[in-house]
């Protein structure tokens, strides 16, 4: 059954499309385009009217488009170990000029279709059409060329003297996969904030080196207490001022206070609307699945300083209010159990993640990203404190408190923990957190091994067994409560 798409969701999709389109256009016009880590204070770049792209969001998109493996492999061929974060590997391969492209015949300039691709052909009654070989026939409209790796620097170095050479070169440019994340402009500068991990520091240093561009760094050291100490605020606040100076030098413009305040107002409005949208998962049954929130993260990451993002989330909020009123949910199955999904999803394996949950009636009604992106503040110092509290920069007590808060508010029956090979800081204290969830909330937890971007690190059989185990534990828990 095709999912009904609400106006809010459509608006959110457009916002992200526009962010990418604007950056492509800016690049065409010779303007500066930057790459930024997801929790770098976007308000600073907005004060200079800079177009900024987000490699983490891009990597997630590339992984969800099934090109995570070929890009990770490309990074490994450049010498980056397969143990490095999958997002970083994808991004570094991309920064080096590597692209997932479509195979074509250089003589005829026609794509070479992969016979294994495509969806089954259905007749007018919706029945699958079988071929002479006894196998389902493929719908030719859905079949795709083979995926191959290409390199923009190699392409640009190709000769273009004859018509044939020009045609070949142009076709090879066009053969690069056309989805937005594979067509992101190369950076003229990079903005790094390592509040979520230190890997970010080295990742962005590598991009700066590969592309020979300036790097603007906001360092947020790990914090061992729930409170952010004044000395920590002073350190980060000084870096904001330093970053502003660097941006002034880069752009040749003065810091525009008005634009900055506007971006701050938008970012606050977006964050507040995002949090209210997240809160709709508290309804029982929830009007949507937490998996949908993962899709909307793109907006919070790439566009939280834009008014359109705030408006789109406010629209979604209205849609959800209506859905609750009429008792509708976009979750395509009746909700039997409610869980928190801990960690970043395995983007290349979203359908596989969803499948056993659907089978058992498990709805994801809490995700850690809800509080993680709720940056709400009133002034610069509060803004520093807000950016200080990223998912992986906080102490275990804060991490547990966030999670237990949403577990309680969103009434979850269990927790599904993703031990994410790509994310050492996130997975590093999950075992202790699991113990606390069970002890404090009396709910079962189950962990599984996976990866946010590299499909080779996900074991579907193990995942299904762990979901099964979690469901049994939740069932037993429910019986005990009734009993």
């Amino acid at each position, binding site marked *: 059954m095709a999912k009904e798409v609400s106006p809010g969701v459509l608006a959110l999709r457009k916002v992200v499309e526009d962010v990418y389109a604007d950056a492509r256009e800016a690049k065409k016009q010779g303007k500066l385009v930057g790459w930024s880590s997801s929790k770098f204070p976007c308000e600073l770049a907005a004060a200079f009217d800079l177009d900024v792209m987000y490699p983490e969001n891009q990597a997630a998109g590339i992984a969800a488009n099934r090109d995570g493996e070929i890009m990770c492999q490309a990074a490994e061929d450049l010498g980056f170990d397969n143990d490095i974060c999958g997002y970083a590997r994808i991004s570094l391969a991309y920064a080096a000029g590597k692209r997932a492209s479509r195979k074509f015949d250089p003589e005829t300039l026609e794509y070479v279709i992969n016979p294994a691709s495509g969806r089954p052909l259905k007749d007018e009654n919706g029945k699958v059409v079988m071929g002479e070989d006894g196998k389902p026939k493929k719908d030719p409209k859905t079949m795709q060329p083979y995926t191959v790796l290409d390199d923009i620097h190699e392409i640009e170095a190709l000769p273009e003297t004859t018509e044939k050479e020009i045609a070949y070169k142009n076709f090879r440019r066009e053969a690069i996969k056309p989805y937005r994340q594979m067509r992101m402009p190369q950076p003229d500068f990079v903005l790094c904030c390592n509040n979520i991990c*230190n890997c970010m520091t080295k990742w962005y240093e590598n991009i700066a080196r590969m592309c020979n561009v300036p790097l603007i760094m906001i360092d947020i050291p790990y914090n061992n207490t729930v409170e952010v100490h004044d000395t920590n605020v002073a350190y980060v606040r000084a870096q904001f001022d330093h970053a502003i100076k660097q941006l002034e030098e880069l752009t040749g413009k003065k810091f525009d206070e008005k634009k900055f305040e506007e971006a701050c107002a938008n970012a606050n409005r977006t964050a507040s609307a995002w949090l209210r949208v997240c809160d709709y998962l508290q309804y029982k049954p929830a009007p949507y699945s937490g998996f949908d929130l993962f899709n909307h993260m793109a907006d919070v990451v790439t566009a939280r300083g834009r008014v359109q993002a705030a408006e789109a989330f406010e629209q979604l909020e209205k849609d959800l209010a209506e859905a609750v009123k009429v008792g509708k949910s976009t979750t395509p199955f009746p909700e039997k159990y409610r869980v928190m999904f801990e960690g970043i999803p395995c983007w290349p394996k979203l359908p596989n993640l969803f499948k056993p949950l659907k089978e058992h009636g498990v709805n994801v009604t809490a995700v850690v990203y809800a509080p993680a992106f709720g940056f709400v503040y009133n002034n610069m110092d509060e803004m520093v404190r807000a950016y200080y509290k990223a998912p992986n920069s906080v102490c275990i007590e804060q991490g547990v408190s966030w999670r237990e808060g949403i577990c309680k508010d969103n009434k979850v029956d269990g927790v599904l923990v993703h031990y994410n090979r790509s994310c050492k800081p996130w997975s590093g204290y999950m075992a202790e957190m699991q113990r606390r969830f069970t002890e404090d909330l009396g709910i079962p937890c189950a962990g599984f091994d996976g990866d946010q971007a590299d499909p080779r690190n996900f074991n579907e059989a193990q995942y299904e067994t762990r979901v099964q185990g979690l469901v049994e534990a939740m069932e037993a828990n429910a019986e005990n409560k009734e009993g």
Partner: protein
Amino acid sequence: MSIEVLLKEFAEISEHPRRQIQAFKAEGKKVVGVLPYYAPEELVYAAGMVPMGIWGSNKKTISMAKEYCATFYCTIAQLALEMLLDGTLDDLDGLITPTICDTLRPMSQNFRVAMKDKLPCIFLAHPQQRKPAFGIQFTMDQYQHVKGELEKISGNTITDEALREAIKVYNRSRAARREFVKLAGEHPDVISAVSRSAVLRSAWFMIKDDHTAKVEALNAELRALPPCDWKGKKILTSGIICDNPKLLQIFDDNQIAIAADDVAHESRMIRVDAAETGDPMMALAQQFADQDYDILLYDENSNQNRRADFVVKQIKDSGAQGLVLFMQQFCDPEEMEYPYLKKALDAAGIPHIKLGVDQQMRDFGQASTAIQAFADVL
């Protein structure tokens, strides 16, 4: 004392850190564990306590630490936790937990949780923007916190005078170790790779005055030796740690000498001294600001390839013919810097090999084959 006797003593201490802790305790001293990287040991010394470096173990296996860690974490951190859990480090009076990499960040929480009510854990977050004035201030703020916690453990106030004295002791230790590294590179016929490691490793387990005295005595002996006509090969080692005698024996067996190193456990930690005059806390913060060319540290000029160029220069200056990179498994900062290190080495025509290592490795057959083959191309 003869070189042989000194080396034997270093080897004994290097192989028995627990015995060292027990001896200190028997003397009534307090001992503070110091995890990697860049913790200001001078503060521990100035508080009248013994800092004990904890860089994992080559003899333990991860078992109890599994209750806290998934498998994909560096064994140095996991085995440190293992030793805290299995009683090996029960005699410690405190523990400093720096957080400069993505494994140490969450591990600082695991250490604190696992040692609750048992051992005070002193949290330390270094800034990556360590050079500007605001970075130096942040380092000082952090060190001030560490100082306060150490004072609670020791019961002593750390005076500026005591700290300045500690800085002198540590500068002298670093200078002696730097000279030893140079002399060891010049006299591989006398200082094997295994012995070299023991001399440097034992520094983490000794009061620095004692260690320095022994190293200076050794250096004096080495200086008096005639120049060595080394027929074997010379390399530079790089990585986080390479202190396993069995692994290092392979180098000795193949006549491969360590001319110098770019190893965190060895030279990366002793490159920079602190000022012996002025505000001693400021001196320590400035010392951290002056640290450079390290995979763990942010480089303001990151669009250049400064670290790799530095390593290439080290190789040329030390007379090494190639580089052996001990790639600690799951060490992403080291892994992230490898492609550009490789690029610089290739550009300079310097051969290298990358050996995947972790502290639970017991069989070095593969490494042995790789090292032998590498020796042939040097």
